[in-house]
């Protein structure tokens, strides 16, 4: 069974006025299709501008106005059941810096409609999972980059989602925090959670993911099993080219 099915998604950030003024359209995603098997860790790979973050935002319902279809665990987006079963750790540390970890978890738990008891129980669990239990009552602004990244993940895990979306979860963290994050993800995956991991770190993708989608300039250029790829970094550069992507 598929945990996530994305069918023919086309999306542009340009407004209709921009489109007519420019005489055309620049698509962030074009006829983009992929799927993730339930219980797997799937890598979403691509150079800058491939459309990975845009796709994450579409899956989580943050971006609207696309054509195509997103189905999460059998529920077609936009759908509250789909949102409730999805957790997302964005690339930017999306936390309230002058709140403590526990206060952040309490707030986002309430947004996820968890009861006070559920929030208290789950907070302890995710804080332990991410190694932040001892620092739960410190302001997030006092955390190191790695601790903030782990809390970013803890918030995504709070409501026990079935599908976890991770956008560059280990950017700027030390090896210890990276190790903790992947240990946590492996444990969660072993307990049945499906994970879609967007990353630039090929070594991590090759090590932890069983399947991958490679995207470039808004299009899918590879979608298949990781075991079919010998050297992921070489494969990535062959498919997407060696030129710099600064545009």
């Amino acid at each position, binding site marked *: 069974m598929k945990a996530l099915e994305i069918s023919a998604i086309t999306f542009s950030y340009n407004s209709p006025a921009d489109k007519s003024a420019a005489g055309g359209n620049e698509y962030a995603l074009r006829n983009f299709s992929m799927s993730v098997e339930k219980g797997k860790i799937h890598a979403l790979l691509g150079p800058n501008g491939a459309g990975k973050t845009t796709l994450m935002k579409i899956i989580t319902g943050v971006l609207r106005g696309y054509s195509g279809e997103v189905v999460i665990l059998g529920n077609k987006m936009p759908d509250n059941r789909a949102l409730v079963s999805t957790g997302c750790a964005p690339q930017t540390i999306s936390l309230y810096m002058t709140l403590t970890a526990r206060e952040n978890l309490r707030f986002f738990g309430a947004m996820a*409609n968890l009861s006070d008891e559920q929030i208290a129980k789950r907070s302890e669990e995710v804080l332990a999972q991410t190694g932040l239990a001892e620092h739960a009552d410190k302001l997030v602004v006092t955390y190191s980059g790695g601790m903030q990244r782990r809390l970013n993940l803890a918030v995504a895990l709070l409501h026990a989602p079935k599908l976890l979306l991770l956008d560059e979860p280990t950017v700027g963290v030390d090896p210890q925090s990276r190790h903790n994050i992947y240990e946590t993800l492996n444990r969660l995956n072993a307990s049945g959670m499906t994970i879609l991991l967007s990353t630039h770190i090929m070594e991590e993708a090759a090590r932890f993911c069983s399947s991958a989608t490679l995207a470039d300039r808004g299009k899918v250029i590879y979608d298949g099993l990781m075991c079919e790829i010998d050297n992921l970094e070489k494969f990535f550069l062959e498919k997407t080219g060696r030129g710099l992507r600064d545009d």
Partner: protein
Amino acid sequence: MIRRQLMEFVKKEFLIMFRDKQTILLLFIMPVALIVFMTLALKGVYADRINERQIHLAIENESKSPKANLLEEKIKSHKLIQRIDLPQGMDRDRIFEYGKADALVVIPKGFDEGTQPVEIYFDPVFDPGYKIAVRSLMTSLTVEVVMGIDNLDAVVANLIVEKTKQNRDIPSPLQQTVPAYAIFAMFFIAIPMSIGFLKEKNEGTLQRLFTYTVSANTVALGKIIPYYIINIIQFLLMMLVGVYIAPYIVGSSFQTGNHFWYFIPVTLVVAAATTGFGVLVAALAKTPEQCPTLAATGAILMGVLGGIMVPYFVMPMVMKKLAMISPIFWAHQAYLDVFLRDAAFSTILPKLAVLTLFALACFFIAGRRIKWM
């Protein structure tokens, strides 16, 4: 469900705000300081328009005759006069350079005989109205002494009766500054409100909210309600300061009027206008750095026009007309209606209508411009 989410929004915003010392300084300490210092400053500027001011008068009694001494005594003891002693040997022409006297009265030799008149010298910058008052007072006192009348006021009591209507238009300095700077501070809520919104937008927490089953309306209300509540708390605190603390510092009391409770609907509407302004700033600013400039410039301009820094009743006519474009003017006048003029609610209502329109216009423009992502 939505109520609980809103409660959490309020809690979250309160925690963030009350951990920010600069915001506390801006929203609560600044207006208290402004109320105290501006009340003290305004007392000197226009208090004499409300209360009788004492005139600083120097007297030179060259005659020293019994009548001259009596006249000197009557002048010195009059409630409107504060006698100024000038340094020994100071030249009469230099008295006003000395800067302490408004006028000089010379009782010359020959006053008893009626050969020399009493002379009055005025400071060149002395208010013409006071010149008339001093001249009139000197005339009365001189007539009393020369004609041997004990009290001229008592003699003319049957001819002239003075009746002063209770002042309902000119606020005392404290009456002016308490609502004025409370409103002013309420408009400054736009700074933390807009910065908070744009920071959340830039840092991704706002986007993260939309990955949950939270509607845009709930998020919008969650950003507005906490600041609306803070505005009301601000006003109540300023009122407490005005009624219970400031009188001990500035030496005058704050009158709350006969329809004190009308301040509740007024405050609810003023808070809607101020949070509306905050939402507008959040919608117009592109970066958090632009927010303080936009919000402070807007609030100060509205304050200047609205009779906060310079009281409305001392403004020239052109400025009085311009004041009407400032929502702060309508808010201040509504509070003066309640606390000073004991106005009927129907008198206050049009001012509240203007403020409601302002709030709706802000929310409407912001609603069209604001980008959540």
